[in-house]
């Protein structure tokens, strides 16, 4: 009897019963593959890896319970309805029954995803945990060209844009942005909301290319879900800061493509007064005054009225309570948040027109700065005397106000990552800025620290101690690596290097003492010879130890079980690779320096 033989009456057991291949699942559910995909995406069902692949190695397996879960999904029935409806429309059109087709199109069956979202993310924190992909996609869709007749509906793109601005406005308002990084792919942001670190990527604000090697059906399904999810998340977040959610925006600002600013104003108007943040309020009011001057007064007041009315129900039940809450918030704010809020506190920053406005409008207020830009609707003009910094990204600056500094946009991002105000000399107009480093890399774990990271570290240390940095001197004054490590000025690798140095020193010292002894004993050797001897002996010893070490390694490998041995070897390979990488970096750096000097 073959091993896999199952008698006719007997049910399947084990992996054969628990897992089902995709084709079989599709047949089981009696849907088309595309519908199945859509269902899987919306429900968050993914294939699983069975321990034993009964049907073959190259197949996708779903857990039977997942498939049953799908089979009981009301959405499945809805999809069938939609399909039937589409057929009806098609038939009507084919019969040139335009009237019927229009009537049918009017009452298209629709579905909602709220229940699905709650099912997938029972708690809000769950949703936040999975928000990375959602945000990245929404921001990407927001940057896509909103062209009529393209594969992507314009409405969807506008929706994405609105949602992304709402999200950014919240992050900016609550000062929960932590890290930023300009990469070639776009700008990475990392925020901390309810203890969850959320990282997302926004593409550069340029025309995106719609490529053909992408299945838009899949992406649209994903974006459909993400849009719904982000809508609910935004609602919850806005609710948490007592702002009515679907915000009413100033149509004039919206038209000027400054939705983010409009949103910020809206939120500040909603909760700013209560939160007792005088800085923000004054700045906003400043802005408003500016706007009011330019804009027609009546329109403005009407809008304000609408907004206020809108907010009344949200604020009414116990304004005092909110006051209390906000006060609590202030106390509870951890150190980091305070730091973030006060980074650009007394700064008034003006953006030139060539810098990425959306990103900076988001980032600078998130760290407590006041920002304006060149164009209509901006809170203050370029000629404002109080402006401390102007962000420019051009080879030369024509007219220069002496009261302000002209810096490149990278300065803002570097300051944010370093959490200190970096000196601006390196970032001045026309200069090549220092390398922009990723804040997501743990340099110590990586084993290689770029040069600029070290200088930043020193600056940070100096800022902490309120001492002016002296880069050259300080690095030499390494007396005890351990204490430095504790202080956090240097990191582990550096400490190791220092320890090595120390050991060498002690060895030299010992050698010196030996020589002294020998001299005392009256044995006269030429110092060079003795040195050589000693060195060779040292080397010998070293070699010996090396060989013994190697051997012991080999020997202990012999007695390992195969599984462990393989794991060990794999780990060793990984370590080796990492070492190689670092070596390559060091080599490149050496070459670059050599070419610079030579």
């Amino acid at each position, binding site marked *: 009897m073959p091993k896999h033989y199952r008698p006719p009456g007997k049910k399947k057991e084990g992996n054969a019963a628990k897992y089902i291949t995709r084709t079989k699942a599709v047949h089981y559910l009696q849907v088309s593959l595309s519908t199945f995909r859509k269902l899987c*995406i919306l429900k968050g069902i*993914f*294939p*699983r890896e069975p321990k034993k692949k009964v049907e073959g190695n190259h197949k996708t397996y779903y857990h039977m319970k997942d498939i049953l879960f799908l089979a009981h999904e009301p959405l499945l029935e809805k999809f069938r309805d939609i399909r039937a409806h589409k057929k009806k429309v098609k038939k009507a059109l084919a019969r040139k029954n335009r009237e019927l087709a229009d009537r049918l199109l009017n*009452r298209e069956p629709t579905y909602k995803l*709220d229940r699905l*979202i*709650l*099912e997938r*993310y*029972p*708690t*809000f*924190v769950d949703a936040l945990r*999975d928000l*990375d992909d959602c945000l*990245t*996609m929404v921001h*990407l869709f927001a940057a896509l060209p909103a062209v009529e007749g393209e594969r992507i509906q314009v409405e969807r793109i506008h929706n994405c844009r609105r949602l992304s601005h709402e999200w950014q406005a919240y992050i900016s308002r609550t000062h929960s942005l932590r890290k930023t*990084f*300009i*990469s*070639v792919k*776009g700008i990475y942001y990392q925020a901390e909301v309810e203890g969850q670190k959320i*990282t997302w990527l926004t*593409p*550069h604000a340029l025309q*995106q290319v*719609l490529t053909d*090697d992408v*299945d838009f059906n*899949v*992406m649209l399904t*994903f974006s459909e879900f993400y849009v*719904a999810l982000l809508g*609910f998340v935004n*609602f*919850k977040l806005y*609710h948490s800061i007592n702002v009515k959610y679907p915000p009413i925006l100033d149509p004039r600002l919206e038209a000027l493509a400054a939705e983010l600013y409009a949103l910020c104003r809206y939120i500040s108007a909603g909760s700013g007064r209560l939160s007792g943040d005088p800085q923000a309020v004054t700045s906003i009011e400043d802005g408003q005054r500016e706007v009011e001057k330019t804009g027609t007064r009546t329109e403005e007041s009407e809008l304000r009225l609408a907004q206020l009315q809108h907010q009344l129900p949200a604020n009414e039940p116990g304004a005092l309570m909110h006051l209390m809450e906000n006060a609590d918030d202030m106390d509870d704010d951890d150190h980091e948040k305070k730091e973030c809020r006060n980074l650009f506190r007394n700064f008034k920053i003006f953006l030139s027109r060539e810098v*990425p406005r959306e990103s900076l409008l988001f980032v600078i207020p998130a760290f407590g700065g006041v920002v304006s830009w060149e164009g209509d609707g901006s809170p203050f003009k370029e000629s404002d005397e109080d402006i401390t910094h102007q962000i420019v*990204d*051009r080879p030369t600056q024509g007219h220069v106000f002496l009261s302000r500094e002209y810096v*490149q946009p990278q300065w803002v991002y570097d300051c944010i990552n370093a959490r200190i105000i970096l000196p601006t000399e390196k970032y001045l107009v026309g200069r090549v800025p220092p390398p*922009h*480093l*990723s804040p997501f*890399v743990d340099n110590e774990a990586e084993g290689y620290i*770029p040069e*600029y990271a070290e200088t930043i570290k020193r600056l940070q240390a100096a800022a902490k101690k309120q001492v002016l940095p002296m880069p050259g001197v300080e690095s030499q004054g390494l007396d005890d690596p351990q204490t430095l490590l504790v202080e956090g000025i240097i990191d582990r690798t550096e400490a190791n290097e220092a320890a090595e140095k120390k050991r060498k020193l002690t060895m030299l010292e010992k050698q010196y003492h030996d020589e002294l002894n020998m001299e005392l004993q009256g044995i006269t050797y030429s110092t060079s010879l003795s040195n050589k001897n000693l060195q060779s002996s040292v080397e010998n010893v070293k070699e010996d130890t090396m060989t013994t070490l190697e*051997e012991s390694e*080999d020997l*202990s490998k*012999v*007695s390992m079980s195969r599984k462990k*041995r393989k794991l*060990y070897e794999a*780990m060793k390979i990984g370590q080796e690779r990492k070492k190689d990488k670092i070596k390559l970096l060091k080599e*490149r*750096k050496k070459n*670059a320096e050599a070419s610079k000097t030579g």
Partner: protein
Amino acid sequence: MILKPRVSSYALTRARSRRERESCSGYRRTSMVAAAAAATAMGKSQRSSKNSDRLEQEIAENPAANEDVEEASGGDEESQPSDAASLSEDEGSQGSPVDSEEENGDVSDDEDHRSGEESDSSEEEVPSRNTIGDVPLEWYKDEEHIGYDVAGKKIKKQARKDRIESFLAGVDDAKNWRKIYDEYNDEEVELTKEEVKIIGRMLKGKTPHAGVDPYAPYVDWFVWDDKGHPLSNAPEPKRRFVPSKWEQKKVVQYVRAIRKGLIKFDKPKEEPRVYLLWGDDSSAAENKRDGLSYIPAPKPKLAGHEESYNPSVEYIPTQEEINSYQLMYEEDRPKFIPRRFESLRSVPAYEKALKENFDRCLDLYLCPRTRKKRINIDPESLKPKLPSRKDLRPYPRTCYLEYRGHTGPVKTISIDVSGQWMASGSSDGTVRVWEIETSRCLRVWNVGEAIKHISWNPLPELPVLAISAGHDVLILDTGLGNAEEQARIKELLHVEESKPEEDGSTPVVSWVQDDKYDCIRLKHLKAVTTVEWHRKGDYFTTVVPSGDSRAILIHQLSKKHTQNPFKKLHGLPVSAVFHPTRSIFFISTKKNIRVYDLLKQKLVKKLETGVREISSIAIHPGGDNVIVGSKDGKMCWFDMDLSSKSYKTLKTHPKDITNVAFHRSYPLFASCSDDCTAYVFHGMVYSDLNQNPLIVPLEILRGHTSSDGRGVLDCKFHPRQPWLFTAGADSIIKLYCH
């Protein structure tokens, strides 16, 4: 006067009817009457239908005439003569009525007659005498006159004839049956012959006029032949033109539904509403995701320094490096090549943004997810905690002596039980005996064939060597030991001349005295590989791998006798060893090891090695543990009490293991291999059955050089000292001491 014409007209009708009767007999009376009525109607059409009714009544009232007709129809032949007579009478009195008419001077009546006689079609021109029109005749019942003529003069009623009178008139006039009383005009009318004829035709159901042809040839005016039209010419059914009933009912239903408000038009499109989806998160039990455990997708890797728009110089690869990427295998090729931009404004849009996002989407819904334990440990911690090697001393560590002299690879070595002598066999065909401590070669025998295996007799008082070379096994006296011993050996190694077998079959092995070296030569049928002594030194076994059923042989030296107890072997035999203490025998084939009890003569155990090919086997002096070396560089340790599977498999050598050895007293064992190394292990076996043997690798012994792809060919421990001898393919034997 008046009566005469009456009679004559009656006679006329009668004659006419007779002619009719000749042509058609068997008429019913009623039909006759009807026909007469019809005829009068036709004949005098200007008279109204009421007139004709009257006529009919008249006929009914005139039973005599009817009877007459009946008579005629009843018997044709009988009445003929009388008829003829009456006819003649008629002719005879013909002249008188005409006269009487003229006398009467009734012009109109005369005209009427004439026209009746001349043609039927001129009847309409006959004007009516009376002009009262269509009024009931009762109005004139009591009057003197019946009406007025054209001139407006009263027409006087004629005197009524009583019945007798009329009867008499009927009898007189043969034509009386043709006379009909016209009440309207108050006169009697005589039917003409043509009129009677017409009535007759009508009664027969024929057309009134004889000239009409009822079966005229049919002229087909419609064109029936096909015009060849492609579509159906079938006329549209009616239902196509008539509004449907059911449609109407449905419409009514809809109208009612609309009126009631069940159907609404122009429903406003519902906006996707957002609301507070997550309420209080405090109740943990409710907020659990049901279903299978959710495995969150791993987050995408965060960007490193090299992805920066402005990375530091060391992250940017040189042009040569970028070129070298092209030579790499596509999967190894770096996906992202760092670039440096001088300023933020010069950064272009990332062309792969959409593609990368799409890939992420695919990963999210297509990749099977499993929970993988991520091992974040120091690889060194994976190594087993072994006791320090220092504590396990003494063991052979360094090369102490070299025994040089052989000219070919030293295939095999064997140490004397006393630990003083060592014998070695080489493929140059020589056997040498060395003094161990001085490395002096004591004696050399040239066997002539490549030595396969060599083995000292385990008895100290019997310094005899068993040598396998080619097809032969030599039992060689080494010449060591005192004279008494020598004498005994001499005696032992003496074989009588082989006597022919009783049964006549060829012996498996022939014991022959070799005169050259003064030894016994056991001639086998095939090449012999190994020779192993029993612990008591009397028995020894030889393995002939290609010997089929005679592969394993056990010889007894004292009796010069050979047994072949293992007739059937499963697999190719590699070697055979005696148990060091008990009467147990190990046979290793290429895959397995079979353990036999020699006393009970049965299989005790089968050890499954799971290696590709066994090359060597060694038994622990305790007898419960076996190590097996294989040609894929693995060494398996078997605990006989534990299981038939190996307790531990050590993957030590990259090349074939040539030999394995146990030390007799120290807890040491060793393996040597073609990779020119020998491994020394600590292998402690505890008397406590609950404690597994402790195996610790101790030392890798190097020193031999490879020759012709072979490294160390044999290794043996010193019987008393922790020393290891290794025989290399470089024709050197080395001694490693502690």
